[in-house]
């Protein structure tokens, strides 16, 4: 039987990995992947807690919501990236400095 701490450990690893990817990678698509990792770690946390603490289906439903939102978010993100690529012919994050102004 796998216990709650193991789930939380996996979730933590996923979260930290996502964070590091978001900060370190220069590729926008890689950053979007990092976001997905963080979302997944959150979904895993929901599922783990509802399995071991609440013992109902609320967390599962929330996990499903997260997956759906992640899908939508990935679609929007990729659309932005494509548009960005069309303008700048690059997907390097350091080219996206218009917030400076």
């Amino acid at each position, binding site marked *: 039987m796998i216990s709650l701490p193991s789930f939380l450990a996996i979730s933590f690893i996923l979260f930290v990995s996502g*964070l590091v990817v*978001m*900060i370190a990678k220069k590729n926008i698509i890689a*950053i979007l992947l990092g976001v997905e990792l963080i979302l997944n770690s959150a979904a895993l946390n929901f599922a783990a807690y509802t399995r071991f603490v609440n013992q109902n289906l609320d967390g599962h439903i929330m996990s499903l919501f997260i997956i759906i939102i992640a899908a939508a978010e990935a679609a929007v993100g990729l659309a932005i990236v494509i548009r960005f690529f069309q303008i700048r012919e690059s997907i390097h*994050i*350091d080219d*996206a*400095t*218009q*917030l*400076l*102004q």
Partner: protein
Amino acid sequence: MDYTIGNIAPIILLPFAAFVINAFIVKKVPKFAVGLGCITMFASFCYACRVFKDFVFVTYSADYYVHKVFTWFDLGLINGKPFNVDMGIYLDNMSAVLLLMVTGCALIIHIFSTFYMEHDARFGSFFVYLSLFTAAMIGLVLSENLLSVFVFWELMGFCSYSLIGFYYEKEGAGNASMKAFMTTRVGDVFFLVGILAIWSTIGSTSFVDIYAAIASGAFNDLTVVGIPLVTFSAISIFLGTIGKSAQFPLQVWLPDAMWGPTPCSALIHAATMVAAGVYLSLRMYPLMEAGGITTVIAYIGGITAFGAATIALIQTDIKAVLAYSTISQLGYMVLGIGVGAYNAAFMHLITHAVFKACLFLSAGSVIHSLHDHHTDGHVQEMPRMGGLRKKMPFTFIAMLCCTFAIAGFPFFSGFVSKDRILGDALLQALDHKTMIAPAVLGFIAALLTAFYMFRMMFLTFYGEPRDKELYEHTDVETLSWNRNVPLLILTVFTLGFWYSGSLTGQGLVKFPGVEHKEWFSTLIKKPDVEKFTKYKREAWGSTDSRDQFFEKAHYDANHGMTEAQAHHAHHVHHIGAIMSIIIAFFGFFIAYMMYIKKAWSPGWWSSKLSPWYRALQSKYFFDDLYIKVIIQKGLLGMNNFLAWIDMGIYDRYIVDGTEVINRFAYRVSNWFDNKIVDTVGVDGTGASVRLFNVVLRTIQSGKIQFYFMILVVVLVSYIWTLV
């Protein structure tokens, strides 16, 4: 009648309001300004009539007075004495009579001016000045203290200045106005000194306070530069009178004042302003008496009356004759003050105002109709007149009555008043040797007055016209409301019985079964200073009470003298009256012989007395004295000295020294500005902003990952502190 702000203030404020309004609108609607001036004058006259009625017809008491004050400004306590300046009204019988005279004369002169000034380019402006002048004169009459008298006094001086210089395009008019202003200023300075002397002694300039102070001996044992304070202040105030009433030795301005339009001469330089000086001396009579300068006053009056009358003998300008006769008559009033004829001096002030205003207006009527087509100017010279009585019958009647009045013919007002002054002068002369000279001068001046006035009448209205062309161009006078009617109204009041009640003017009114004292000498008496030690001051707005007067007035037939003295006085007055009648007729006779019969030649006299004639021609050399000696020798040197002080000391050291200091201050402030303010303050602010800019710019890099990392760091550190 209740004396409230509602029925006293309009007397002065209506003409003043007319002045203020007219000053703005006169250029646009001169006709309306003239109408407004006349209407406000009429309203003011009506209010003055109310006051007169209350005093003379209702109360009829010598002791009745109304005194209401409010504090104008308060200077607190100085040396334990309250120093505040009151404003208010002091009305007694004298003010009430004078108020009626001033407003009445002013109204009539306003009406006459609508005729005389009609074709003048500045028809409206003339009425602006007239309104202001009348307001000032009324203010002077109503004033309850010397300070407000002084204020209105100066205001009148200004109006006189403006009106003398009314035809400022003529050079003489400008100079004459300057001369009048400067000469009266000499007297005014002393007047102000006198006011300050009184004020610093008793802490008030109110008439009643001065009377009370004289009675209580507040002036005793005080001296200024070695002379008693009371004498000092009396002389100072009398010098104000000398300046304003054109007395010797400051008489030089009044003849030149004839440059002004004739109605203004009638109002200002005959009826009211010059009389204001006499009025002031009458008000301050107790002070003059306490100061012991009545003999000096009598001498000044006598000299003025005589000297001016002699100069009038040879004048050829009709207005100049009247100007010198005004000085002479003012001399009579001053002589009256000097010999203690308080009542008669004031009566002469009133009667003179009426007949002299009428004389001036008549002269104005004559001058206005004599128009020289060659020079396009009016003729004032008597040698070019003559025979005008056929052309101007109404003016002739008015002028003849006034001439009778001023010459002192029986039944006319001048006889009543002048005779009493001369009677009192005679009485004084019999008692004191020193007073003989003024009385003699007074009697001789009476003779000269009768002579030169009839000379003027004969030269103007009788005989053959000496300038035929001028005579033919003159239109025959018709009766018109603003030309002859004002003259005829004034003429009615040249009759003596209005003032004395009896036709002979000897005081007692005798009807069958009725015998009482005439109103003028019943009502107007010397202020009894003892009574004023316990007078009550009333605030504005308080209700009047009929018990305002000190005690029930009673008539003392003998003026406080014993029966024997009174009999003597009465006797002397009779002698004086008979003498003045004889003198008047004698003057008339000489004039008749010289100018109608031509039996005696004036030229013979002038060649016999040629040194004197020359002195008269140059007006006793007073103008030369003042201009050549005092101004050129004395004042010019002082002027140069003052100029040296101004240029050599003030300009050189103070002004230039200030410049050096300023330059140094400029350097200091320049350094401060450049170094401290500019470099440190302004540039320093810029530098610090730039420094922070460098720091903050590195944070705001525009790199999302950098922002994100900051976010993470902040969140972690926040959670860290929570844990």
